[in-house]
């Protein structure tokens, strides 16, 4: 053997501390504006941010998210739940059992439930409907913590992995889908809570940051992809796998809003707004977060 590389926790936590700056991900951006924007961002980058980006790239190449994808894949085809069936008949919008490309086309309107559903909401629905799990049980502890990994998180990671390198195309054909976008936009801009915050307070302007953490402007076409790209994501802090459901929940928590319902209409609408804004970009699959 000639070389051994180990990523030790010491190096990892050290870097994570110094470089909280979020790596502006290399976007495979079709709109021309994005390239210009990326160039500008690169010019303004400080050395710490650049270092973190390098670290991010190395980590992304062999992201532990893959481990969760494998786990989800296994779970998907295993007969589970009170009804002892697999999820292979679950319809993610492209027909029963079609997983390939489903993630980049969600949230979408499902006529069978009459609801807008993002990937996690739909998977929870399938787990309840097909496998007989109780929705209340799934909503009790829906987020990763310590060594606890909720089933929907692994499943979402698997489903997302099946849309790797595909174009984001969140549908807006149906009136319900267009209505969800409008509602999502309203939720995004709705100021309330003890701090009078909205999503747009932090994510509605260019070149804002919290400490060294760059904040994407999710209301702009150029930055919007960053709300989609890299999710579900493996968070290096704590080594946890998180989905967009968690991210939305955490954003509301940080705004001191009442906690939104897990897999609720509110989150589906908000994700529709952000997803549609990211349409046209290439989705790179489950990613890695600071």
């Amino acid at each position: 053997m000639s070389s051994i590389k180990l990523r030790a926790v010491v190096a990892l936590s050290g870097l994570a501390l110094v470089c909280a700056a979020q790596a502006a991900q290399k976007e495979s951006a079709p709109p021309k504006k994005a390239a210009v924007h990326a160039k500008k961002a690169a010019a303004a980058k400080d050395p710490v941010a650049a270092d973190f980006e390098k670290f991010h790239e190395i980590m992304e190449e062999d992201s532990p998210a893959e481990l969760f994808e494998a786990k989800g894949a296994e779970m998907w085809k295993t007969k589970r739940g009170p009804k002892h069936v697999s999820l292979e008949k679950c319809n993610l919008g492209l027909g029963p059992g079609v997983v390939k490309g489903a993630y980049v086309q969600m949230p979408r309107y499902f006529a069978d439930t009459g609801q807008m559903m993002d990937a996690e909401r739909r998977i929870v629905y399938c787990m309840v409907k097909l496998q007989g799990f109780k929705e209340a049980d799934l909503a009790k502890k829906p987020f990763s913590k310590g060594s606890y990994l909720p089933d929907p998180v692994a499943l979402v990671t698997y489903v997302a992995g099946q849309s790797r390198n595909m174009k984001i195309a969140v549908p807006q054909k149906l009136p319900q889908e267009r209505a969800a976008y409008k509602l999502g936009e309203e939720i995004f801009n709705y100021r309330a809570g003890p701090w009078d915050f909205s999503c747009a307070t932090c994510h509605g302007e260019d070149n804002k940051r919290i400490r060294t953490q760059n904040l994407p402007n999710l209301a702009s076409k150029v930055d919007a992809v960053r709300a989609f790209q890299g999710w579900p994501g493996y968070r290096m802090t704590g080594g946890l796998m998180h989905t967009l459901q968690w991210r939305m929940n955490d954003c509301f928590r940080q705004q001191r809003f009442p906690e939104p319902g897990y897999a609720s209409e509110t989150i589906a609408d908000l994700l529709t707004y952000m997803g549609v804004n990211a349409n046209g970009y290439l989705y790179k699959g489950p990613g890695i977060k600071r």
Partner: protein
Amino acid sequence: MPDPMRIRATAKNGEVNVKVLMAHEMETGQRKDAAGKPIPAHFIKQVTATWQGKVVLSANWGTAIAKNPFLEFTFKGGKKGEKIQVTWNDNKGEKRSDEATIN
């Protein structure tokens, strides 16, 4: 049983580059839970990689290795189509072995 590893092995210029992702808690034993009780240590102690029955890497690990560790190494020899096997043992006596074909 512990979750499977992801192993990728690619041959290039007479060398094989191996990348391994392992699913493991790697608990140091120095952390405490919400109730203030120490969380018992749980970490990989030994990693062995074999190719054609020959050990090409053997490593003793401790608690300084991150959760869900990633290991990359190269060794001389090895051709496309041959197998590489990686095994880890942890301090609780758990064990996991996975195999991959060199590409």
